[in-house]
């Protein structure tokens, strides 16, 4: 009995000591990274801006579903709080860390919004997760899902319990350590519908957990994966909210359930995908070979900028050949064949339509910004 008390006291002390950020941040979580990028880095939706502000968060981790790794972050980071269209571009670094600030540089695209769990602001409804997935562009994201200063996380999901020591790697505060302070948390969280402007709305979250100390996170760390503090770095939760003293997070088990569960299109096949990874690898190999054989045809399509192999948007277990076109996907779709030797062909519109001018003409900043 006494021993546990001393242990938890020690653990508390350890958490406090470790929460003090290491003298100088050697790893820059806000900087542009050469591709493939590691996670725990600045990122967000390329359209996450308003008249006066731009916003961003953390591309926290890679969630493997079947054989495909998806960038896992928050709905409010990748999907602009329910407002984004599937397929919107995700950039690294995020708008807030671009030069000039807020510059919408489509060249920095690393992924496209794949799926999000809508957040309900209805007072009578509750939420469990603020989560979204983005499908990485070919070669844009480290395939092992390594996180800056953490490495590849473990694959055993751990439920939070009071006292559990945790760590996270995020855009703003980098690598920090903390301790689970409470579980079973119900919490009302404030969101702002525009970036740094617009209506403030509240959503109630249930079955969350709280982490201390205060320095565990700050604005911009949204989307970070919280893992166990030991070397196993097993996933515990998805960081999404905070106050001046506590950080709040969704339970990883809820996040996985919500994103692989029976919501949205093509989800039913997903939970079984875990069981057949080698099959998916074979499919990708086959699709790649076919793509190479039809290379000339693909490159001759109108506005074609490139091609690759990925997984179908509607069925993540199905390998597809993707053709990236600068614009006018419809035109390319008409010229392309729907499939090549049985492998579906997807036309993906990229670039140029997003290459907007800088933000110099934008309105003067307000005095106060959201966190």
């Amino acid at each position, binding site marked *: *009995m006494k021993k*546990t008390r001393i242990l*938890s006291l020690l653990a508390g002390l350890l958490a406090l000591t470790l929460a003090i950020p290491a003298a100088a941040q050697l790893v820059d979580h806000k900087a542009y990274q050469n591709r493939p990028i590691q996670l725990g880095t600045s990122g*967000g939706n390329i359209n996450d801006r308003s*008249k*006066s*502000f731009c*916003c*961003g*968060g953390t591309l926290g981790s890679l969630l493997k579903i079947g054989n495909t790794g998806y960038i896992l972050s928050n709905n*409010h980071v990748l999907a602009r709080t329910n407002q984004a269209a599937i397929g919107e571009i995700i950039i690294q670094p995020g708008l*807030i860390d671009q030069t000039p*600030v807020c510059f919408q540089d489509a060249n920095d695209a690393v992924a496209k919004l794949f799926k999000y769990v809508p957040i309900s602001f209805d007072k009578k409804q509750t939420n469990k997760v603020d989560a979204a997935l983005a499908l990485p562009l070919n070669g844009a994201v480290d395939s092992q899902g390594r996180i800056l200063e953490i490495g590849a996380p473990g*694959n055993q*999901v751990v439920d939070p*319990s*009071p006292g*559990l020591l945790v760590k996270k790697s995020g*855009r*703003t505060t980098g690598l920090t350590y903390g301790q689970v*302070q*409470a*579980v*079973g*948390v*119900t*919490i009302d*969280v404030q*969101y702002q519908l525009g*970036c*740094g402007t617009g209506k403030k709305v509240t959503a109630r979250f249930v079955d969350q*957990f*709280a982490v201390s100390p205060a320095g565990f996170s*700050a*604005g*911009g*760390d*949204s989307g970070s994966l919280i893992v*166990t503090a030991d070397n196993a770095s097993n996933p515990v939760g998805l960081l*999404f*909210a*905070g*106050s001046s*003293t*506590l*950080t*709040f997070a969704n339970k*990883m*088990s*809820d996040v996985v359930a919500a994103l692989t569960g029976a919501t949205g299109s093509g989800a039913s096949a997903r939970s079984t995908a*875990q*069981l057949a*990874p*080698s099959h998916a690898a074979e499919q990708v190999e086959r699709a790649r070979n076919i793509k190479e054989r039809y290379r000339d045809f693909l490159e001759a399509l109108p506005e074609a900028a490139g091609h690759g192999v990925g997984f179908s948007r509607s069925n993540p277990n199905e390998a597809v050949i993707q053709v990236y076109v600068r614009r006018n996907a419809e035109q390319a779709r008409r010229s392309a064949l729907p499939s090549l030797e049985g492998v579906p062909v997807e036309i993906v519109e990229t670039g140029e339509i997003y290459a907007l001018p800088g*933000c110099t003409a*934008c309105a*003067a*900043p307000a005095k106060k*910004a959201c*966190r």
Partner: protein
Amino acid sequence: MSGAAILVAIAIAMCCSSDGRAQAEASPSSEREDAIRQATEVKDRNLEKLFKLPQVVGAGVGFSSKHPDQPVIQVYVSRQPSARQMRQFPKSLEGIPVEIVVTGPVKALPDSRPQETKKDSRK
């Protein structure tokens, strides 16, 4: 290879089962887990009541900061309630102590910056 994948699938299935409380770690004994589960039930039963109190933004369950073996219900408030308001807060619920935690306002954590390159808007 696929054996490992199955294990992962099972692990995920376990933790996502209806009560969502698959045991996690070796450190907290099952006694502590039971205590937390029980306190969570009490908290949930009284949640509506708690949310009617001034400044309350949330509630959760943890262990007492003074007595690490004592489960408590934490009530989160956006700012320190006045002395008069404090009297409305219960000291305990169904025998479980209530701790009031001043969190400040709780917000989603994106960061935002003004479009012009004047200065970082973060605190």
